[in-house]
């Protein structure tokens, strides 16, 4: 069993996260938000990142964009280290990486018209010709399924949550980026609208040739759009693997627990009684060894003493667990 530090297909990675550590100082204490995370996202791939609130998945997304600077580690985008960049060089790179947030209404300035909101990235990136900007805004609104003529002059409050998320997606796409970080893009939406937005993201990915990092707490949603899934718990990765493999044969007890907790819309499937034990401990004082051990049915002494490394259990499937649910390869 070989510990592997780069758990993903090495073919043409667009994004590589190496030994990333992000910490926050709060009232003299340190929150260990992201601890020694390694990830790769291949060009054209969608990597799903799942975990409960507070597991550090949003912080990881922000650290990729350098909206939150890492304590240590590197973020390589298309071979260039973003953590070493400052000012203008960083701004140039950010044009190629965009972010979509959870709350579509809160992420639009309520006092600005939709046309201006979407044109803003164009203004910042130096496209001076207003007619060219208008044309680009019209094109991208059409692409996300909105009628530009009816939309550009209106204010965000005139739109529903689903429409606002379409507007946010249009704003993210207008600079023709290569990589989009979607941070819980559908958690605030109703089931029916959620399906529309997930389908739209898939269409846009194909149309614009995008690579996606899709962050969410809902495993079913993540599986619907992701090629591979990374499971995060209290700042560390538990498991990384191809979506179908991970769902059919979860190797980490935490992955299994997350899958079991998904409500199944079938009355014949009785919900498993109390699949989850307790709640995640505070990221201010994470447990020693394996961070999941305080909720894990399989935990023993070794789990408290030794931090489990990510190891291969199947082709492209990696788990950080001393007692994986499937035999190691």
């Amino acid at each position, binding site marked *: 069993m070989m510990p592997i530090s780069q758990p993903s297909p090495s073919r043409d990675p667009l994004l590589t996260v190496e030994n990333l550590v992000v910490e926050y100082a709060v009232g003299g204490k340190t929150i260990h938000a992201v601890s020694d995370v390694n990830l790769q996202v291949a060009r054209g791939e969608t990597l799903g990142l799942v975990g*409960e*609130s507070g597991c550090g998945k949003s912080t990881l997304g922000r650290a990729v964009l350098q909206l939150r600077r890492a304590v240590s580690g590197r973020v390589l985008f298309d071979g260039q280290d973003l953590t070493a960049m400052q000012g203008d060089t960083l701004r140039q790179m950010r044009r190629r990486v965009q972010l979509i947030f959870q709350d579509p209404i809160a992420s639009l300035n309520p006092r600005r018209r939709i046309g201006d909101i979407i044109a803003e990235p164009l203004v910042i990136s130096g496209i001076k010709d207003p007619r060219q900007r208008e044309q680009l805004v019209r094109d991208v609104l059409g692409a996300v399924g909105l009628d530009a003529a009816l939309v550009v002059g209106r204010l965000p409050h005139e739109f*529903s*949550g*689903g*429409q606002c998320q379409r507007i946010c997606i249009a704003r993210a796409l207008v600079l023709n980026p290569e990589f989009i970080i979607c941070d819980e893009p559908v958690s605030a939406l*109703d*089931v*029916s*609208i*959620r*399906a*529309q937005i*997930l*389908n739209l993201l*898939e269409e846009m990915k194909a149309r614009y040739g995008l690579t996606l990092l899709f962050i969410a*707490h*809902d*495993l*079913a*949603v993540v*599986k*619907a*759009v*992701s*090629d591979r899934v990374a499971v995060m718990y209290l700042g560390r990765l538990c498991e990384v693997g191809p*979506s*179908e493999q991970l*769902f059919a044969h979860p190797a980490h007890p935490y992955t299994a*627990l*997350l*899958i*079991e*907790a*998904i*409500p*199944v*819309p*079938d*009355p*014949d*499937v*009785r*919900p*498993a*009684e*109390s*699949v*989850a034990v*307790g*709640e995640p401990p505070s990221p201010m004082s994470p447990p020693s060894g394996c961070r999941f051990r305080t909720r894990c049915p399989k935990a023993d002494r070794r789990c408290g003493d030794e931090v489990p490394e990510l190891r291969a259990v199947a082709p492209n499937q990696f788990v950080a667990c001393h007692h994986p649910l499937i035999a190691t390869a």
Partner: protein
Amino acid sequence: MTEPALLSVEGVSVDLPTPRGNLRAVDQIDLRVGAGRTLGIVGESGCGKTMLSRAILQLLPKKAKLSGRVMFDGQDLVGLDPERLRKLRGRSLAVVFQDPMTSLNPVLTIGTQLIETLQEHLELDGNAAKRRSVELLAAVGIPAPEQRLMQYPHQLSGGMRQRVAIAIALSCEPKLLIADEPTTALDVTIQAQILDLLAREQRRRHMAMILITHDLGVVAGRTDEVAVMYAGRVVERAPTPALFKKMRMPYTEALLAAIPKIDAAPHTPLPAISGRPPDPTRPIQGCSFSPRCRYAAGQCHREKPSLAAAESLDHQYACFHPIEVAAGATA
């Protein structure tokens, strides 16, 4: 349906005046919940499910106009004098809201809020109320309950706060608990714990429950009966197993189909419902789902279908073109 129901909602409508005209949030709803039974109410944001629960609790905004009857335990809650209502709410009629942070008082300790409820409704003395509070917190799965009594809501996680809200709701052994999206703000693992907790306490106390949610997955294994709401009306209503075995209303089917399936391959396009719910200030002539419905035909755009039973008395739906084939349950 001849046995007397614990709660019987009869022809209830709620109208709200808005600057854009009258908004009919709840439109002619009839529902019954028997003692110890669970009714699931499912629908999207704005379908009127929360307004309906507020109409039952008599907690509507001041400007709202309520018509119809809400019979609870033998008396009509509509027009009941405020003092008697207050005695009833919290005591035999309890509620848990979506966001525990807004239902708990941020400047009072957990203990004060629990003990206050117990003293008010059960007339327990201080010590007895405190003992009872500790028991209740332990029953809803809160570790170290004695210490928690001295804590404030902000010192607890979202899941723990919702447990406290449930402990307060259960404190006076209510006959009916209304849980309005109790797990929507929580993580999946915590959602499963809270739903288990509600089911366990319900069985133990033989309490009736109305579980309001937008997720058909949540009601599937945990309710006796389901009512699906759309644009202020109940559009389909059936015992839970019957509903999932044979959905008749196209909206119910579409809602179920839109949920991502864990056994589907990645990148499978989801059958989304096109468009969005109608503007409630501009009522639609005909079936309110018709603009989004793939089965809609001429009659659907002219006439409003009424909620009626077909082959079995307890399975009702409001549709001119109900789905004929068995759908849903195998998904």
